[in-house]
C-alpha cells in the first residue's frame, strides 16, 4: 500500500542561539534580530514522511501556517523532496495560540481531504508547548501518538510505533489515519538535494509575492503577472487564507485563542560582574530572596 502523508511544519526564531543583540533592554526577546529557521523537530517529521514514501510510495504534502516570509521553510521542504507544499497565510491568523493554530491547520487538512498519516515535530523551539499536534488530531477525530521515535510496522489500516516515555518506551498499535509527533532523535534529516534546489529556488507563495510588492512600492512588481509566470513554470506555492479553508475571523488568530500572554519578563541579569556575598546569614538570605524573585529558584 502507498501512504499519503501530510507534514505540519513551522518557521521559528533560532532560540538556541540567542545573543545579547537579540534581547531588548527590558529583557524581552527581539524576534526580528533572530535568524528564522526550520523548526528542528519538524525536519525529523519530514524525514520520517519522506523515508516512508521511499519504502512504500505515496505522496508527501507539507503545510505551514505563518507570515509571508515563512514560505522559506516550504521551499526547504521542496529541496528535500516534498511533493506539494501549502502556505496558510492571512493576517487574521496572527497571534493564534495553540488551539486556534490547531483549528486552522485541521481545516486545511480537511480541505486536502485524503491522507493516511499526519507527521508533526515533537515541539517547536519558540513556545516548546508540544500541543498543536495532539490538538489537530482531536479536531480531526483521529488517534495520535506523541514522542514517536520509530515506525515499527505499518500495513493497510494499522500502524505500530515506538513512543518515548520517561526512562523508557512504549510500543503503541493503532489504526490509520493517525497523527504522529516525531522526536528529534528519531532520524538524521537529509540535506537539501542540489537538483531540487536548482528546480525550486524561485518558487514563491502568493502571500510572499504580495508582501514583496507591498514592501517595494517602487519596484513595480505586477502581482498578477508574476503569479501567472510562476504558475506556468510550476513554481507557485499555494496560499490559503481563512476564506479558502472556510474559517471565520472569530475562529482563528487572536480572536479564536483562549490563552493570552499577560506579561513577559526577563530571566537574565545583565551584570557580568561578580556580586560578592558576605558569608553571613543576612547576606545569604538576601541572595536567596533575589533568586526567588528572579524566578531562578522556585
Amino acid at each position, binding site marked *: 500500500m502507498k501512504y499519503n502523508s501530510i507534514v505540519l511544519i513551522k518557521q521559528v526564531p533560532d*532560540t538556541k542561539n540567542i545573543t545579547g543583540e537579540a534581547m531588548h533592554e527590558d529583557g524581552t526577546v527581539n524576534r526580528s534580530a533572530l535568524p528564522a529557521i526550520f523548526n528542528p523537530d519538524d525536519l525529523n517529521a519530514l524525514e520520517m514522511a519522506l523515508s516512508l514514501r521511499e519504502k512504500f510510495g505515496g505522496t508527501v504534502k507539507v503545510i505551514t501556517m505563518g507570515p509571508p516570509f515563512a514560505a522559506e521553510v516550504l521551499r526547504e521542504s521542496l529541496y528535500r523532496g516534498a511533493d506539494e507544499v501549502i502556505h496558510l497565510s492571512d493576517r487574521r491568523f496572527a497571534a493564534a495560540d495553540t488551539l486556534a493554530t490547531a483549528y486552522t491547520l485541521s481545516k486545511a487538512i480537511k480541505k486536502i481531504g485524503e491522507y493516511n498519516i499526519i507527521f508533526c515535530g515533537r515541539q517547536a523551539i519558540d513556545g516548546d508547548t508540544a500541543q498543536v499536534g495532539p490538538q489537530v488530531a482531536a479536531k480531526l477525530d483521529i488517534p495520535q501518538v506523541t514522542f514517536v521515535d520509530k515506525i515499527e510496522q505499518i500495513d493497510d489500516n494499522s500502524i505500530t510505533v515506538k513512543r518515548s516515555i520517561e526512562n523508557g518506551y512504549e510500543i503503541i498499535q493503532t489504526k490509520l489515519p493517525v497523527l504522529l509527533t516525531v522526536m528529534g532523535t528519531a532520524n538524521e534529516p537529509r540535506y537539501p538535494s542540489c537538483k531540487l534546489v536548482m528546480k525550486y529556488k524561485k518558487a514563491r507563495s502568493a502571500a510572499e509575492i504580495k508582501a514583496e510588492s507591498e514592501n517595494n512600492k517602487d519596484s513595480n512588481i505586477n502581482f498578477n503577472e508574476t503569479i501567472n509566470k510562476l504558475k506556468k513554470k510550476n513554481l507557485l506555492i499555494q496560499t490559503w487564507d481563512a476564506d479558502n479553508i472556510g474559517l471565520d475571523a472569530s475562529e482563528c488568530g487572536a480572536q479564536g485563542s483562549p490563552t493570552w500572554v499577560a506579561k513577559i519578563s526577563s530571566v537574565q541579569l545583565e551584570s557580568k560582574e561578580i556580586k560578592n556575598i558576605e558569608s553571613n546569614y543576612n547576606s545569604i*538570605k538576601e541572595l536567596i530572596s533575589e533568586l526567588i524573585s528572579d524566578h531562578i*529558584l522556585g
Partner: protein
Amino acid sequence: MENKGEVWIISEQDKGKLAEISIELVSKGRELADRLKTSLGSVVLGDNIKHIPEELFKYGCDTVYLAEHPDLKYYTVLTYTNVIYKLAKEKNPDIILFGATTTGRDLAPRLASILPAGLTADCTDLRIDDYSDPRSKKVLKDTLFQIRPAFGGNIIATIVNTWAPPKMATVREGVMKIAPPQNERTGKIININPEFGQKDLALKVIERSKLEKKVNLKNARIIVSGGFGVSSRENFKLIHELAHTLGGEIAGSRAAVDGGFIERDHQVGQTGTTVRPKLYIACGISGAVQHRAGMSESNKIIAINADKDAPIFKIAHYGIIGDLNQVIPMMIKAYKEKGKLSL
C-alpha cells in the same frame, strides 16, 4: 459572586503507585482551591487502584473521582480522554492541572481541543489574581496566572485564559513543593463507571518498558555541585541536602568523583556531562578549565569557596568566600524560611 467550579488534578499512577508529580500538584492545587474558596478534586484512572484516593486525601484532596476499568490499566490517550471529557462536561471544574509528563503532555492538549478550553504548557508557577483583559476591557476576577519559560528559557511568560472554564495547564515536574501529609485527613470518593466504544479502544499499548530513574543532569534546572573542597563522601551529604531543599540534582567535579565522594555518572565537565541549568551552585570547586567547560553556560552560577583566588569566581555571578560547611546550612535555612513566606 458566581460559584467557582472545583480545582482538579489529573493524577498519574504507575502499577498502583501514585506519581510524585501528582502529589506536587495536589499540594499546589490545595493552595489554589483555598484561595478560590472551592474544593480540590482529583481524577485518577487505572485498574485495581482503590488505595490511591487515601493518598490523595492526605495531601489535600476533598474529592477523588475514581475510574477503574481493565482498559485503563495502562494510560492510552483515547480511553483517558473519553473518561475525563465526560466528567469535565458534567462537573464543570474551574481549573484542570496535569503533570508536564509524556502522559500529561499527550492527554491535556487532546482534551483541551475537544472541550474546547485554553491550555498552557509546562508551567513553573501558578497564581490566582485579577486580570484586566485589554481586548474585552473586562476584569477577570480571581483568574489563573500561568507562568512558564519560553523562547528556549530566555524569557518568562505569564499566560491567562480569557475563555470560560476550565482553565487548563500542564506543570513541570519538581517545581511545586510537596505539602506535609496529614494522615487523618479524608474525603469523598466518587466512583466512575467508564464505558468504551470500539473507537476508544483503537489505540493499544502492546509493550511498555520503564527503567529505574537514572541521573538526568542535562535537564536539571538547578544543580548543586561539590568539588575537592567538600573533602569527604560523608561531608557530601551537605550537597545532597542543599540539592534536595532547592529541588535540584547533585553533581560533582572530577576531583570529587576521583576522591570517591560521588558516582561518576554525576560528573560535570569536559569528561563528564555538559550542563546548562538555570542555577549552578559550585561548592568547594576551584574551577579548573575542564570543569568550567561543562558548566560555564549555566544561566546563573553561585560559587562557594574558601580560596578567594579560585578561578571559579571569574565566571560566577555570585561569589561567597567562606567555609561551605557554614555557608550551605545557612542557604538551606534561608530558603526554607523564604519558601514559607511566599505561600
